[in-house]
């Protein structure tokens, strides 16, 4: 049933069916999300700048999610010798890099008016910039090595080792004193965002995820074609 996740030809068949609906649904959700963001109330202390959150948080979520997916595929790719994993790794790394960059830029634009600085080297900001460096190394590694097997294995091992950074990013705000505030949503208790602001945030997160998925499908299909012709 889920074999399209590991088999290139089944992936192609499955995504041919879902791609058009995916484009339609993600555009609709994005438009709804943007309207909800426009209508969302101003924060009691941050005012209008709180709306940067609706870009910043979905980008951060996708930056981490993309890396987590790459890690899972790298592990099964090496353990079970599954070439489709390496197609995924190569296709989605730039997507993760772009979302990480978007997260850093929007965070910086948010930090200047609220904290009074574009950038500080606290644990959260530093660990996310390390994530961007990891993505860049993965993209560059894809351009190296004549031998494809060696290249794919090297990249997969690099991705697995780099995944140690993910829990560090997540918990950096709890383990150390940082200028970045702790998480608002992922606590076990009720979220500390009011419902009227949480709702547009969730819709925007879904919209960003679907758009990310859309680009990923296109890139994976292209990558499959490239492999076929070599």
């Amino acid at each position, binding site marked *: 049933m889920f074999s399209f996740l590991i088999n290139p030809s089944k992936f192609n068949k499955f995504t041919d069916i879902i791609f058009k609906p995916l484009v339609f649904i993600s555009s609709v959700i994005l438009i709804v999300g943007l309207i909800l963001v426009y209508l969302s109330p101003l924060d009691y202390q941050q005012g209008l700048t709180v709306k940067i959150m609706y870009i910043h948080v979905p980008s951060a979520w996708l930056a981490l999610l993309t890396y987590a997916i790459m890690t899972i595929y790298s592990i099964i790719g090496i353990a079970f010798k599954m070439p489709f994993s390496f197609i995924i790794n190569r296709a989605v790394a730039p997507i993760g890099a772009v979302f990480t960059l978007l997260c850093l830029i929007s965070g910086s634009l948010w930090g200047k008016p609220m904290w*009074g600085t574009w950038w500080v080297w606290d644990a959260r900001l530093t660990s996310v910039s390390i994530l961007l460096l990891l993505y860049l190394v993965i993209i560059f590694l894809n351009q190296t090595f004549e031998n494809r097997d060696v290249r794919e294995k090297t990249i997969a091992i690099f991705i697995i080792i780099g995944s140690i950074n993910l*829990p560090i990013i997540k918990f950096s705000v709890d383990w150390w004193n940082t200028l970045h505030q702790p998480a608002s949503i992922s606590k076990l208790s009720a979220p500390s965002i009011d419902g009227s602001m949480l709702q547009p945030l969730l819709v925007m997160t879904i919209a960003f995820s679907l758009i990310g998925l859309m680009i990923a499908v296109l890139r994976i299909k292209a990558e499959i074609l490239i492999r076929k012709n070599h």
Partner: protein
Amino acid sequence: MSLRFQRLVLILITLVILGAAVLLILFNTKKNIVFFYTPTELIEQNIFSEGKIRIGGYVKDSSLKKISLNQYSFEITDNKNDLLVFYQGILPDLFREGQGTVIEGLIVNQKTVKALKVYAKHDENYMPASIKKELEKNNQWKRDYK
């Protein structure tokens, strides 16, 4: 156990060991990773360096004083210990009494700091401005919500 599952287990064990090693390093260098010290940490651990240091806490209520056009003094507190801060420059928009803050500056003496930079630190609570007004009207405005 088949070869592929052996490989899977090997990878996972490697990842766990590597992760543990990195975490051990990070927690043992905690001093260098924290972005700021609280006033209590500063006094208890006796960190009085010559160089720049960052201190974080809340701006104590009714301690913010304007000395001249862009010179301020205020007290930074973690509800146990206070430090008196002098600052010359522009304060961030969010900076006010009761709000979290991080300052970067030089220690003058045990109780006084000369700030070179002042950052505002906000918490993880988000709420529409209209609700805050309602809460204040009904006297439901809670301290933890800040």
